[in-house]
């Protein structure tokens, strides 16, 4: 039996610096929004992986006005309609987030893609080379200040 939303929320509320916001699935497409410090994403992945969640996707958002980079992890559960969003913000000049590819091997490609597009480094990633961009690409096209 998958964990209930309350249990998950309770777990994250106990984490340091975590802000949990329940969301209406019909209006948002997910049930729980968890904002964490960058250091907490691996623990979050381990917890969610442990209760049967799977990494749906992950992506970055370039908040250039706030001078921050956001990394968003979407989790889905193969047996329940619960969707959890975990997000973390890092400074834009030195965007570094620990890798979750040790928990979800599928994150390997997602992190490489996010690194391609945003230049966010994933500390401990086994092979952070360009995935979708050419292997000699030194630009990050989804940054808001990117000029083609």
């Amino acid at each position: 039996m998958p964990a209930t939303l309350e249990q998950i929320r309770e777990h994250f509320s106990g984490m340091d610096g975590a802000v949990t916001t329940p969301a209406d699935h019909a209006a948002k497409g997910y049930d729980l929004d968890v904002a964490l410090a960058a250091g907490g994403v691996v623990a979050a992945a381990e917890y969610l992986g442990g209760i049967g969640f799977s990494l749906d996707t992950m992506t970055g958002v370039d908040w250039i006005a706030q001078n921050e980079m956001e990394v968003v992890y979407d989790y889905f559960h193969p047996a329940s309609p619960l969707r959890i969003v975990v997000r973390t913000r890092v400074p834009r000049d030195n965007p570094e987030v620990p890798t979750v590819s040790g928990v979800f091997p599928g994150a390997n490609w997602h992190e490489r893609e996010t690194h391609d597009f945003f230049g966010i480094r994933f500390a401990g990633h086994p092979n952070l080379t360009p995935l979708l961009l050419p292997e000699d690409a030194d630009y990050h096209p989804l940054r808001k200040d990117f000029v083609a």
Partner: protein
Amino acid sequence: MSASFDIGAPSKSGETFVLNLGPQHPAAHGVLRVKMTMDGEYVMRSEPVIGYIHRMHEKMGENRPLAQFLPNTGRIDYLSALHYNHAFVGAVERAARIEVPPRAEFIRVITSELNRISSHLVWWGAFLLDLGGFTPLLYAFDDREKILDLLEGVTGSRLTYCYFRFGGVRDDLDEGFAGRTRAFIAQMRPRLKMYRQLVTDNVILRKRLEDIGPISPELCRKYGATGPVIRGSGVPYDVRKVEPYSVYSQLDFDVPVYPEGDCMGRYRVRMDEIAQSLRIIEQALDKLPDGPTLGKVPRVLKLPVGDVCYAVEAARGRLMVRIVSDGKEAAYRLKLRTPSFSNMSLFEEASRGMMLADALALMGSLDLVIPDIDR
């Protein structure tokens, strides 16, 4: 740290060579390259190299008004364009709280399911081509042609549909569509039986697929594989059931699940899905209400600030669109979670130690569409 990324299966002879499968290879069905370290016929390690046709759809989504991104959605997975239409308009409708008239929802379901069948038929033909059987491809394309004719009558296009609009669909069903579709369904069912006799029951095919390329539910979970891949591993995960969208909750259909997890399991899931889609279309045609096909949409559409997700079950699995809006006409960030990307990522681990022909059967059974991986 997972060690699985750099250590392959142990070599039997101690001598290996690198085989570059692609970017132009008959089994890659597009520009996919797989760098394989081979020990004779055995694949020791395979490293997919993707991105050859990366087009940065996500950036395009950020620099144009939302409606202008619609034609892009039909070009990400060219075989099931309507599902991509659906995911994108669904996300925008969810964010802008646009009501969709029931008739439009039913039309969406009917056309999407037709699109799903046509996509599965192409997969079936191409997969058999991978396995060296040429004739099924032509039979599949014959049937698919009938679907394309039906969809062309409704949408005006044959492949890269741009038919769904925010708040509904562009046009109502054309005259005689229901009758022609019912005739097609009546025609398609005996064809499915023929497919079974020709291919599914064939001893050569069964020897090629049974117990080949097993994928466990745990592997699917680790890589986020969805669609027929996870259902062929015995997990009844289908977005249409788990997270019902549109009017799927009003329709009665089964989710085919095969616990084997081998290529045959995935094969059977897709073949059964064709039959289920026919069922859905039949019911949706019966229940099709009258009314408008396009709801009220503001002329200049601006989404409220915030983010929104919308997932649909595309032919290849869970497709999710995430839109982050800053209140302007264009999305601030548009993320496409495409099923082939995740399904492909498990190939590296699943193909380890297989023989070349079996690895290619496994690759074919994942139903990859390369632009869907590369976006």
